[in-house]
């Protein structure tokens, strides 16, 4: 059955505007629509009324690019688990519901407009060490000369599936980016190729993370719950071990 809904949406003209919640109504919403398709319907209404549509980030709409965000009814990526907002479907809601939609909020993620935030702080952390320093000349050794234990390879892959959306930061009461950084540190810590630069990597990435204004981890685990890719808290523990090891090495 199609639904009529009330939406309370954060509107903010630009980074310096104060911003406020504004109410909207949408009707005849199909349960098979995705959440962002529901917002498309609202935006089409707004454009037709000569009003400015709601700005929100999105691109692939299949849960992998990490561009979509949204804090829906108090949860990053909304009420469902293991998905991004673009994979959230309206069948999770019922007729007559009021839905609150806000941007991801964190000091290190300033609002650009409405529901769009600036997550380039994540990029800068990666610039500090999220790589293996190998040239892309192709003159490397044959791929099969480095056998990697399947369990380690699979665990490294699990860490590497992070999409960099920032749900972990938005969900954390301290706005900590430890899950995001931990995932990248773990991916390389678990692979032999990553060992050479392990010390510098973790120290540099953590330093940049602190400079960006992300908070500390107090192990509440909210990030893991809201992570659309199920990145586990073990990544934070592994990063802490790597960091301690690196610090002791000096």
């Amino acid at each position: 059955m199609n639904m009529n809904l009330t939406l309370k949406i954060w509107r903010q003209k630009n980074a310096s505007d104060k911003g406020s919640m504004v109410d909207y109504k949408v009707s005849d919403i199909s349960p098979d629509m995705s959440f962002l398709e529901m917002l498309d319907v609202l935006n089409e209404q707004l454009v037709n009324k000569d009003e400015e549509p709601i700005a929100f980030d999105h691109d692939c709409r299949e849960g992998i690019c990490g561009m979509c965000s949204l804090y829906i009814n108090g949860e990053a990526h909304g009420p469902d688990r293991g998905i991004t907002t673009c994979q959230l479907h309206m069948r999770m809601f019922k007729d007559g519901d009021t839905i609150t939609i806000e941007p991801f909020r964190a000091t290190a993620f300033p609002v650009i407009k409405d529901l769009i935030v600036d997550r380039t702080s994540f990029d800068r952390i990666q610039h500090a060490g999220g790589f293996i320093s190998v040239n892309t000349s192709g003159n490397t050794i044959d791929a099969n000369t480095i056998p990697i234990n399947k369990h380690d390879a699979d665990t490294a892959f699990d860490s590497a599936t992070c999409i960099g959306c920032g749900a972990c930061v938005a969900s954390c009461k301290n706005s900590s980016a430890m899950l995001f950084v931990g995932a990248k540190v773990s991916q390389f810590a678990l692979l032999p190729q990553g060992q050479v630069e392990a010390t510098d990597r973790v120290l540099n990435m953590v330093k940049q993370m602190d400079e960006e204004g992300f908070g500390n981890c107090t192990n509440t685990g909210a990030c893991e719950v809201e992570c659309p890719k199920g990145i586990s808290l073990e990544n934070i523990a592994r990063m802490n071990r790597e960091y301690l090891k690196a610090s002791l090495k000096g």
Partner: protein
Amino acid sequence: MALDSKIPQGPIADKWTNYKNHIDLVNPANKRNIDVIVVGTGLAGGSAAATLAELGYNVKAFCFQDSPRRAHSIAAQGGINAAKNYQGDGDSTYRLFYDTVKGGDYRSREANVYRLAEVSANIIDQCVAQGVPFAREYGGLLDNRSFGGVLVSRTFYAAGQTGQQLLLGAYSAMNRQIGRGKIKMYNRHEMLDVVKVDGKARGIITRNLITGEIERHSAHAVVLGTGGYGNVFFLSTNAMGSNVTAAWKAHKRGAYFANPCYTQIHPTCIPVSGDHQSKLTLMSESLRNDGRIWVPKHMKDVEAIRNRTLMPKDLAEDDRDYYLERRYPAFGNLVPRDVASRAAKERCDAGFGVNATGEAVFLDFASAIQRYGKEAAHVKGLDENDAALVKKLGQEVIKNKYGNLFQMYEKIVDQDPYNTPMMIYPAVHYTMGGIWVDYNLMTTVPGLYCIGEANFSDHGANRLGASALMQGLADGYFVLPYTIGDYLSDDIRTGTIPTDSKEFEEAENEVKEKLNFFVTNKGKHSVDYFHKKLGKIMWNKVGMARNVKGLTEAISEIKALRTAFWKDVKVPGTNEEYNEELAKAGRVADFLELGELFAKDALNREESCGGHFREDAVELDGEQKGEAKRDDENFAYVSAWEYKGEPSDAVLHKEQLEFKDIELKQRSYK
């Protein structure tokens, strides 16, 4: 201008090596004096930007997303091909070359494809060195799987997220160079024009998508890695932002556009659920390794399934039509994409579609679950006849292989594919056509290069699965960094290109004028209104099956729609702010021109080849009756279109394709 593909002389296996031995190089100290612009940060653009910066050039990279890591290469699922022959199943550079040319229905350039096959193995070495976590076997070595249109296992993968892992690899290589200051990254910037100075590409005009600021950027060469144009259909598996604008602006500045009608309609996508649909979702081709495609044999069962009085899993084996296995016994469910898509359409057009819209077929994992379950039970010494146990073990194996895809399906369709077959239908996925490039990957504009999906060169009329990632990374890591040096060696004394020339000013003014038009037009309809209409015309008349009548109608309908768009489009807000409607308006304006050229190209090509199927070009009898009929005598050429104003005025240039190393044959997968 006559097309010169600049293919090096000599035997095919030696061309690339000979070429590299004889090109001009730029010495490391001089590279510091040369600027290169790279637009797009997907596998092609990202890998090119990283490699050029490593070599010492000053790179400026641009993407419209908020981070280079979001480029749509990230959504590629199944894998990447490489002629490693790790499985010892007879693979070789030649075989990968042969499969790609045959898969492309003999409409690609032999020399480019051979080079692609040649460098493919390096890609895997490179990615592993970067820490890309490919799937491995228990012995610790890399695992492979099989893809459509081939008889070997040469596809490397990382679950159903291979594109993500490869893109994050290229992104990490970029990050290293951004950190060193060798790449200056411009996120949330959209390229709106190419600037030519003295006939050479010397820069671009961009719009900062946050502030609306129009910027001039100069360089000694410009590289476009801006992806495909599948969104001309409105609904496709492309990302919402994927667009043709960068390529189209290049076309308008003199780059020929090749084979626009070669579009890949991917057979396994989640069917359309309603008018609200904004995009379509692919289910990886790798699923056809284990999934069997079928529809019911009898109409009464089709109706019962649609009415939900019969569960698909309860239909007896004898009452199912595994039509790919029936029609193509040699390749079965792993026929190439164009063949599988047309076969699905044929069954659905005949009335056998299994969902309410009549546009869906089943992709069924029940036999694979049984097979894997029995094997697992055997390995563990458990009872192979315990049905519940076998099913459970089999589902675990399937989950391990395709877990993320099954989850995606369940979230969208609200059905559990472990227990009921998936419903799938073809959808627009990839464009083999694109900007014409020579062997150096340079367009017909000197100093303007085009790589990855945005160019036309390697996939002919149909791309094989797991070859897009291969081509993107081959172009960016291993081909362009060589070929561009040959061109730039003339620029070591040029010095920085100034941006205050009249060419930059004129280009900037044109861009501003168009943006101003949109925000002041105050028309009646939104941008999407026109985009959806264009998509309907394209899908119905320039889609999976094409004919003269439909194509002729499409051309005039698109023209009329374009007129209506310029009269009636409505864009709220201003230019000097984040304004997605404004960005979309510019993109749809370009799609409305491309769409017409696309249909014109399809009308010109009076043959069926690969993804381009003309209803008036089919085999009339014999074993291949009803299959696509190619016309090598008259159409073994690349159609390269020159811009002359209106799409209807575009001038056709032909690059005749020569097949010296592969015999032209009918493509048979029977």
